[in-house]
């Protein structure tokens, strides 16, 4: 079995992975500029739904009826990223070497919920023939491959709230190994249906007071969010040769499991710490070389403490400046890591770390350097982005400014 292809096999060196396009749909903004401005603004009130999303900007009316909201987000964000990177033709010179790797925690929950109601109200015959292709977790990447004619690997990653980060990590490895020239990577989620909201609430994951306040002493859970983030990953030489704008480089990625509990993180954060250490090793970096950490920072009591402890374990106390954008975005489950990867790339582009919104009084048990109240200048250097999913799935990626 091959582990490397083409240039990567011949030189025995992995290919470098450039980021050459961004697409983003979040509650605080659609498109990079609006999203970034949203990250620096006051948190939205109430639920973190994407306001004013019009699928007809990306789909004809018939397509829009056949594609669940989570896939609509995914295709729209992918189209934005592809256009940002120069368009389909500039990426698709060899379609068999263009992949699509997308994360999703659930898939088309809205479609499933509505069709179950249809069935109970009207019988089996009322269930839409489009239920399966609309709800399947791979519908996002399938619709992207079809729309743009990409024939490389098209696969979904399902690791709950770590899905987006794992998708980008796995996609980067397809470039590093030489299997793909280009991978459209990211994640999408639209979990805010009635049953979705009730389920997260009843497992006591949601804030009862309706405030996302990562690392705060009074944090009591997250605000459910939705949206999609997509990055164009491209082999570095290819990107340079075609004159693409190179926003950043993926230096490393890692994936580990807590093997501890289906929803709670391991108390001392050892699974998360292992994952961060592995990502550093993958990127061939020392802990002190990391300039900033974009935290998972969900605003739940257990996650934030375990993540902070893990950061201290790997980076010392307090370690590099940390932010969680979930004070603004809420927690968009499977797509969180992809949305945060876009935020990390924008931090590089804007040279600014957005503050952790909602944080008023840092938990005295949390000993990390949280960026709060106002944005802080980013000292140029690699950024670590963390994601941890129910099931004990840990994902880390390291994104660096282009050299």
């Amino acid at each position, binding site marked *: 079995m091959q582990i490397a292809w083409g240039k990567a096999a011949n030189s025995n060196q992995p290919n470098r992975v450039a980021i050459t396009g961004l697409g983003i749909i979040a509650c605080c903004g659609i498109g990079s500029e609006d999203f970034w401005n949203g990250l620096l603004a006051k948190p939205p009130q109430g639920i973190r739904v994407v306001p004013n999303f019009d699928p007809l900007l990306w789909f*004809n009316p*018939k397509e829009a*009826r056949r594609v669940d909201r989570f896939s609509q987000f995914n295709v729209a964000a992918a189209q934005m990223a592809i256009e940002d990177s120069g368009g389909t033709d500039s990426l698709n010179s060899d379609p068999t070497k263009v992949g699509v790797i997308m994360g999703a925690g659930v898939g088309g929950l809205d479609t499933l919920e509505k069709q179950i109601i249809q069935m109970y109200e009207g019988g089996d*015959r*009322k269930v*839409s*023939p*489009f239920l399966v292709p609309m709800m399947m977790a791979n519908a996002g990447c399938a619709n992207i491959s079809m729309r743009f004619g990409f024939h490389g690997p098209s696969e979904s990653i399902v690791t709950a709230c770590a899905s987006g980060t794992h998708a980008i990590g796995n996609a980067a490895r397809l470039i590093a190994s030489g299997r793909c020239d280009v991978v459209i990577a990211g994640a999408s989620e639209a979990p805010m249906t009635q049953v979705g909201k009730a389920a997260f609430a009843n497992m006591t994951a949601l804030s009862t007071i309706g405030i996302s306040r990562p690392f705060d002493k009074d944090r009591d859970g997250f605000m459910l969010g939705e949206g999609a983030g997509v990055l164009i990953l491209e082999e570095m030489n290819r990107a340079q040769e075609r004159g693409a704008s190179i926003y950043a480089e993926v230096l490393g990625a890692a994936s580990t499991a807590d093997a501890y509990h289906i929803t709670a993180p391991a108390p001392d954060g050892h699974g998360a710490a292992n994952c961060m250490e592995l990502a550093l090793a993958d990127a061939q970096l020392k802990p002190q070389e990391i300039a900033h950490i974009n935290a998972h920072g969900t605003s739940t009591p257990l996650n934030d403490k375990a993540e902070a402890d893990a950061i201290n374990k790997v980076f010392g106390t307090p370690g590099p400046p940390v932010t969680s954008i979930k004070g603004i975005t809420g927690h968009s489950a499977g797509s969180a890591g992809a949305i945060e990867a876009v935020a990390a790339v924008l931090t590089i582009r804007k040279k600014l770390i957005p503050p952790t919104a909602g944080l008023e009084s840092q938990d005295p048990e949390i000993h990390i350097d949280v960026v709060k109240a106002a944005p802080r200048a980013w000292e140029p250097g690699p950024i670590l982005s963390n994601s941890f999913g129910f099931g004990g799935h840990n994902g880390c990626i390291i994104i660096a400014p282009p050299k």
Partner: protein
Amino acid sequence: MNQEEAFETFKSCAVEVLQVTPEQVVKDARFADDLDADSLDLVELVMALEENFNITVDESELEGVETVGQAFDLVIGKVG
């Protein structure tokens, strides 16, 4: 319901499910070529017709049905 009324009902189902214009739904129109409808679209259309005409159409009855006219004849045959 006379034939004309029945065809208007048929047409509104097709417009809704297939997202085509009413002008496209003529008896000669072919589902695949003229209305861009695949097999799943037809299943959904049949479900809408069953509801609106209060009939039942078996999958096997759809074999060989390629045009709006053929589908309409099938429906009208059941409405009586």
